[in-house]
C-alpha cells in the first residue's frame, strides 16, 4: 500500500516543475467549466489523453486507475443526455474525462516530495499566523503512513482472536478494540514525539516526508 501513483520517467511533463503543472491544471479546469461546447471538450480530452500517453504509463495500469471513475462518468453522461440535452451530456462526459486524465497525468509525473513542497509553499501564509507549518504537515503525512500498516496488522490480530471465538463477522467487535488501542497509543506517541525535540525551533525542520518514493 505504501506505493504512490508516481512513476519515474523523462517525459516533458516529468521535467516541468510541480508548481507550474498544478497552476496549469487549475487554469485548465477553470477554462473547461466556463464552457459547455462539446467540441472544445473533445479537444481538451484529446489533449489530456496525449499528455497521458507521453508520460510512459503502462496502459494496463492506467486502465485500472481510470476504469472506476470512467464508469461513473459514463453514467452521468447518459443521465444528462437523457434528462437535459444530448449534446450537453456529451460535453459533460468529455469534460470530466479531460479533467480526470489530465489530473492523472500530472500525478503520474510529480513525485510526492515535489507536490508536498508546493503545498507547503501554498500554505505558508498560514504558517505566519502559526496555524500550519511544514514540520506539522510533514510529520502528519508520515504518521499516517507509519500507522496504516500498524492498523491493518492490529486489525488482523483482533480478527484472528475473534475467529477463534466464532465472532469474525462482527464488525463492531473488530473496530471497537482497534480504535481503543489506537487512542491509547496516541498519548505515548505524542510523548515520544515531544521527547525528540518536536516542535523544532524556528523552521529548523524543513523536512520532506516520503523522500524514498
Amino acid at each position, binding site marked *: *500500500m505504501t506505493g*504512490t*501513483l508516481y512513476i519515474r520517467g523523462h517525459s516533458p511533463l516529468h521535467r516541468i516543475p510541480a508548481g507550474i503543472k*498544478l497552476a496549469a491544471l487549475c487554469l485548465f*479546469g477553470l477554462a473547461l*467549466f466556463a464552457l*459547455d461546447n462539446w467540441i472544445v471538450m473533445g479537444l481538451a480530452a484529446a489533449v489530456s489523453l496525449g499528455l497521458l500517453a507521453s508520460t510512459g504509463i503502462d496502459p494496463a495500469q492506467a486502465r485500472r*486507475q481510470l476504469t*472506476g*471513475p470512467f*464508469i*461513473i*462518468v459514463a*453514467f*452521468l*453522461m447518459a*443521465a*444528462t443526455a437523457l434528462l*437535459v440535452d444530448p449534446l450537453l*451530456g456529451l460535453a*459533460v462526459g468529455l*469534460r*470530466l474525462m479531460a*479533467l*480526470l486524465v*489530465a*489530473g*492523472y497525468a*500530472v*500525478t*503520474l509525473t*510529480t513525485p*510526492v516530495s515535489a*507536490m508536498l513542497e508546493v*503545498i507547503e509553499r501554498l500554505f505558508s501564509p498560514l504558517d505566519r499566523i502559526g496555524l500550519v507549518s511544514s514540520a506539522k*504537515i510533514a*510529520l*502528519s*503525512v508520515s*504518521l*499516517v503512513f507509519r*500507522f496504516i500498516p500498524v*492498523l*491493518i496488522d492490529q*486489525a488482523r490480530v483482533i480478527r484472528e482472536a475473534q475467529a477463534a471465538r466464532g465472532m469474525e463477522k462482527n*464488525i*463492531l467487535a473488530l473496530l*471497537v478494540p482497534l*480504535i*481503543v488501542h489506537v*487512542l*491509547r*497509543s*496516541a*498519548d505515548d506517541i*505524542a510523548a515520544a*514525539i*515531544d521527547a525528540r525535540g*518536536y*516542535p523544532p525551533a524556528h523552521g529548523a525542520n524543513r523536512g520532506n516526508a516520503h523522500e524514498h518514493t
Partner: protein
Amino acid sequence: MNTRDIVLIALFAAITVALGLAPRIPVAFLPVPITLQSLGPMLAGAMIGPVRGALAHVLVVLLVALGLPVLAGGSGGLGMLAGPTAGFIFGWIIAAFVTGLLCRTWTVSGKARPSKWADVGLTFIACVIGGIVVLYACGALWLAFVAGLGLAKAVSGVAVFIPGDLVKAAFAALIAHNVRRAYPIELK
C-alpha cells in the same frame, strides 16, 4: 494545537484510509461499489470532535492530492479531486465537522452519563446529519454542477446509497459509544 492533537488527527486519517482498503461490496446495478470509507468521517467526528475530525479529513484530501492511492480501490491523485466524486471527498471534511459538532453539543462525556440508548441514539442522529445529509448535499451539489444536472436529479441519483450509509451510521454510533466507555476523550 498540541502534539497529541496532531497524532490523533493523523491516526484518524489513517483509519479512513485503512477503511478504504477493506474489501468493497459490489452491488449489481450500481456503478460504484459500496465502501466502508464513508464510515471514517463519522467515526472521526464522533470520537475526536469537529475540529480534529475535520482536519483529519483535510489530511486525507492532502494525501489524495499528493498522489497517494488512499481512496477505496487504490485511487488517488489530482484527477479524483476534480472528478465526479470530488464533492464527496471534500465533503468528508464538512461531514466530520458537523458530526463532531453535534456530538459535542449533545452528548455529555464525563460524570453525568446519559442512558446508553440516549447516547447511541444522539450519536446516530449526529452521524446521519453529518455523515449523510451534509455529505450527500456536498456530493450532490458537485455532481449537479459538474454534470449539468439539476440538484434534484443529482440527489435522486445518489439517494440509492443512503440505506447503506444509514447502516454505517448506526455502526458508527455503536462503535463511538463503546469506545467512549473504554476510553473517554474530549471532543475538540
